[in-house]
C-alpha cells in the first residue's frame, strides 16, 4: 500500500467516510452481469446450502438445498444452478465478430494471420467477496469430473446431465479470476476497495456490509458508525442484522435457526417414507413441503441483504467513468471466454486436476505479464494512481522548459531532440535509461540524459515516434510550456519466449501429459454424507 492510499485511509477515519483511491473505474462492467450470492454448509467441503442468482436485481432466483448432506438434493441444486448459469453463458456464445489471430502454420512454420471468431461480449459473474471466488472454484472442481448416466452408465451416483459442463465453466471462471485485471469473475469487495479507502483495516474491508457503509453511509450517519452496526448489530433473536456475505454463514444462525429447521425437514421426510396409506402420505407431504418452505425462507433471509448490497455496490461503481484501458483488458477476457467456448465445443476433456508443466508455466507467465500490464494501464488511466508511482520515483510529471533540436550520429541524420522538463518529482533513472510517455495512446520512448539545476530539471532525448523524415512530424514532440508525464516503466508488455506445445513437453518436465479424460472422484458409499 502506498503512502497515498494510507493517507486516504486516515482521511477516511477523520471524515467518517470512505475516500477515493481511484478517479476512474478500473474494471469493465457489462450491462447484464450475473450476480451469485452463494451460501455453504459449515464444515462440509463443497456442500452448498443455497444461492441467490440472476441478472435482474428485482427477481433473483432462490436455490436451496434443504438437507445439504444429501447427495441427491445437492445434485438437484447443482442442476438448477446449471439451468440458470448455462443459458446465460450460451446467450453470449453465439454472438460473434470476426477477428484475426496470428498462428504458426504447421507446414511452413511461419506466423500467419487466421480469421477466427471472437465473442462480441462475455458473460460476467459477480460474487460478493473473495471467499465467493474460492467457492466458485471449489464448486467447479466438485462438478467437472462427475459422470452423467449418459457418459458412463455404470457410474455410481450419476450426476444430472449439465452439471459436469457447469463445473468446467465455473473452473474456467475461477482460474481466470487469478489473472490480474481480469473481470470475468469479480469479487465485489475487491473491486470496491480498489476504488475507495475506508477508515478500517483491509482485513475488515472483506465485510461487504461494513465496506458499503463506509462508502455510502445512510443519510445523516457516519461511515464508521454504520460500519460498526453492519458488522456487529444483532436482533432480538441474536441474529446479525446484516448477515455475512458468505459463503460461510454465522454460527448463531446455524445453531439457532438452521439446525432446528433442517431437523424438522429430516423428521418430515422420515415420516413421509414411513407413511402407510395415501391419506397419511398426503398429510405428511404437506408437512415436508412446509418444512422445506421454512428452510427456503431462512436462506432467503440470509442472502437477500447481500444480494441488495451487491447491486448497491455495482451502482456505486457504475457511477465512476470507466478507465481508458479497461476495455482493452475486457477484450482479453472475451478472448479467454471464446477460447474456452471453443474447447467445450471441440469436445475436449475437462481441465485436469493438476496442470501439466507447459500449461502451468504459461499460466504463470500470463499472470506476471498481466500484472505488469495492469499496473502500467491503471497508472496511465488514472492520475491518482500515477501520483503513487510518482511518489515512488517510478514516474515524473512536469513542464517542458526547453526543446533543442539535435540529430543522431548515424550516416542518415535522424532527429534526436533534447527535451528539458522541470519537475518536483525525484526520479532516479540510470544513465541512458528509457522513459516513456503516452502520445495519442502509443508510448513514445526517450533516453535519460541527465539532471540539471540540482535535480529540478530532467534532460531527455526523444528517440522514436517522430516519423521517417529529417524533421519530426508535427505534434510528435512536446513544446515549451506543455505539461508532460514520463514513466520509468514500459506501457506495453512483450510476451516472453514461446513455450513448446504440451505434447512436446520434455521428459525433464514430466513428459507429455497423458491423454484421455481424468477419472471421476471416489464417492462416499452412503447417500447422506
Amino acid at each position, binding site marked *: 500500500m502506498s503512502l497515498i492510499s*494510507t*493517507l486516504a485511509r486516515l482521511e477516511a477515519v477523520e471524515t467518517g467516510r470512505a475516500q477515493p483511491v481511484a478517479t476512474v473505474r478500473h474494471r469493465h462492467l457489462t450491462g447484464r452481469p450475473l450476480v451469485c450470492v452463494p451460501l455453504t454448509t459449515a*464444515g462440509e467441503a463443497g456442500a452448498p446450502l443455497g444461492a441467490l442468482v440472476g441478472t435482474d436485481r428485482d427477481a433473483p432466483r432462490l436455490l436451496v438445498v434443504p438437507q445439504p448432506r444429501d447427495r441427491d438434493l445437492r445434485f438437484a441444486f447443482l442442476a438448477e444452478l446449471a439451468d440458470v448459469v448455462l443459458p446465460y453463458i450460451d446467450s453470449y456464445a453465439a454472438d460473434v465478430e470476426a477477428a484475426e489471430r496470428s498462428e504458426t502454420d504447421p507446414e511452413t512454420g511461419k506466423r500467419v494471420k487466421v480469421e477466427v471468431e471472437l465473442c462480441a461480449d462475455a458473460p460476467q459473474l459477480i460474487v460478493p467477496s473473495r471467499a465467493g471466488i474460492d467457492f466458485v472454484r471449489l464448486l467447479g472442481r466438485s462438478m467437472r469430473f462427475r459422470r452423467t448416466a449418459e457418459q458412463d452408465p455404470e457410474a455410481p451416483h450419476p450426476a444430472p446431465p449439465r452439471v459436469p459442463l457447469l463445473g468446467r465453466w465455473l473452473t474456467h471462471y475461477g482460474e481466470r479470476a487469478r489473472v490480474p485485471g481480469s473481470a470475468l469473475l469479480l469479487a465485489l469487495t475487491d473491486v470496491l476497495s480498489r476504488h475507495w479507502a475506508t477508515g478500517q483495516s483491509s482485513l475488515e474491508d472483506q465485510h461487504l456490509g461494513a465496506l458499503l457503509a463506509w462508502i455510502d453511509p445512510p443519510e445523516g450517519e457516519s461511515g464508521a458508525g454504520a460500519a460498526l452496526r453492519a458488522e456487529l448489530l444483532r436482533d432480538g433473536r441474536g441474529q446479525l442484522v446484516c448477515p455475512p456475505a458468505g459463503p460461510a454463514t454465522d454460527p448463531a444462525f446455524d445453531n439457532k435457526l438452521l439446525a432446528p429447521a433442517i431437523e424438522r425437514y429430516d423428521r418430515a421426510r422420515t415420516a413421509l417414507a414411513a407413511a402407510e396409506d395415501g391419506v397419511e402420505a398426503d398429510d405428511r407431504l404437506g408437512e415436508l413441503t412446509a418444512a422445506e418452505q421454512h428452510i427456503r425462507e431462512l436462506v432467503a433471509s440470509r442472502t437477500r441483504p447481500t444480494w441488495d448490497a451487491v447491486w448497491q455496490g455495482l451502482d456505486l461503481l457504475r457511477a465512476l467513468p470507466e478507465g481508458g484501458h479497461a476495455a482493452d483488458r475486457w477484450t482479453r477476457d472475451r478472448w479467454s471466454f471464446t477460447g474456452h467456448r471453443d474447447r467445450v465445443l471441440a469436445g475436449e476433456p475437462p481441465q485436469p486436476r493438476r496442470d501439466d508443466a507447459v500449461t502451468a508455466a504459461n499460466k504463470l507467465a500470463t499472470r506476471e505479464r498481466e500484472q505488469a500490464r495492469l499496473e502500467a494501464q491503471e497508472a496511465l488511466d488514472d492520475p491518482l494512481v500515477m501520483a503513487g508511482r510518482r*511518489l515512488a520515483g517510478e514516474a515524473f510529471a512536469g513542464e517542458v522548459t526547453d526543446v533543442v533540436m539535435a540529430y543522431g550520429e548515424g550516416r542518415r541524420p535522424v532527429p534526436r531532440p533534447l527535451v528539458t522538463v522541470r519537475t518536483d518529482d525525484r526520479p532516479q533513472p540510470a544513465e541512458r535509461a528509457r522513459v516513456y510517455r503516452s502520445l495519442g495512446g502509443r508510448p513514445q520512448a526517450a533516453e535519460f540524459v541527465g539532471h540539471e539545476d540540482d535535480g529540478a530539471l530532467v534532460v531527455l532525448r526523444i528517440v522514436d515516434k517522430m516519423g521517417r523524415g529529417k524533421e519530426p512530424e508535427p505534434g510528435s514532440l512536446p513544446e515549451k510550456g506543455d505539461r508532460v508525464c514520463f514513466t520509468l516503466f514500459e506501457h506495453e508488455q512483450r510476451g516472453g519466449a514461446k513455450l513448446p506445445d504440451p505434447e512436446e513437453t520434455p521428459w525433464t518436465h514430466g513428459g507429455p501429459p497423458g491423454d484421455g479424460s481424468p477419472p471421476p472422484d471416489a464417492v462416499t458409499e452412503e447417500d447422506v454424507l
Partner: protein
Amino acid sequence: MNKATLASALGSPSAFGQSQFAFMRGNAFEARVKADGGAELLRLVHERLDPEAPPPKGGAVPDLGASGPEGRTARTALALREATGTGGWTLLDHPLLALDVAGSPAFLEPDAVVVHPDGSWTVVEIKSFPMLDGSADAAKVGAAARQSAVYVLALEQVAAHVDPAPRVRHTVLLVCPKDFSNLPTASAVDVRKQRSVTRRQLERLTRIEEIADSLPEGTCFAPDLPPDRLTAAVESVPATYAPECLSACELAFHCRDRARAQDAVTSLGRSLRAELGGLTTVGSVLAAARGESGDPDDPAVAALRRAAALRSEALGGVAAPRAAAEAVPCP
C-alpha cells in the same frame, strides 16, 4: 478466566462460535478415522511416516480414563511410558498433556498420539477440511501445524521424564477427508519451524505473576463488576491492538474500540503503522501531512507532505496551495 464472558460484560461481545454442523461433521469424521481400534489411522501413520516399521496388526488402544485433568495427565504419561517399550503400535485416543505457559499449567488434548514400534511418538491431528487433489487450504494447514507444534512441545516435556527419553517426532500426521468424500487421507507435516517459534514465544512470555504484580492492588476481572470499573481493570493490563487480533482474541472488539478512541494508527493495520515513523495517531499524521505540525526534516513527515501534495493535485483539489505553486512554476 473466560475472556468471552469478560468481553460481553465489557459491552463488546466476541463473535466467535462454532456451527453445530461443523462440529458434527468434525466428530463424525474423527470417529470414522479412529474406528476399528484405529486400524485406518495406524495404517496411515505407517504408510506416511514409518514405512520401514512392521505394518500394524491391531495396535493397542489403552484406556486413558481418569478423574480430573491431573489424573488424566498422569494416566497419559503412564500409558506412554508403558507403550514405549512394547515394540508394537499403540494409539492413544485423546490423551491429556500439560504444558507450562507463563508459569501456570495449561491442559492440552491432541486428537491422538501414536507410539511407533521403535518407541518414538507422533502427534496426529484430525481436521475436517478437505484435502483436494493432495493439497489443502494453506491457512488452515498452517493453523493445524501451529496447534500440533504445541502438542509436540508438551509431549517433549513428558518424554523428558522417561529414561531413556523416547524421541518425539517433529513430523506430525495431518488427517483430512479426501476430496469431496469422507474417506480419510493423510499428509506428513514438518512442524520443526512452528515448534521452535512456539518454544521461543513460550520462553519469552512474561510470567503471569509478574503481570499480576504490576497491577494495582485490588484489580478484579469479575464479569459482574460495574462496566466502568471492569473497563478500568482491563485497561490496567497493557495490550496493543492490531486488526489480526480480530481472528484470534475474544477481547479484540473491546481493544479495537479503545484503539479507535485513542486515534491509534495501528487499528488500520500493522504495515501502515510501519510507514509512518514516529507518528502514532491519526490526528498527528494528518496534521503533519498538512504541514500544521511535525519536523520537515523528518523523512516520514517529508514523505507524507509530498504524498498529500500529489494526492490533492491528482484529485484536482485546491487544498494544497504550496504543492500547486511548486508543481506549476511561473513561466
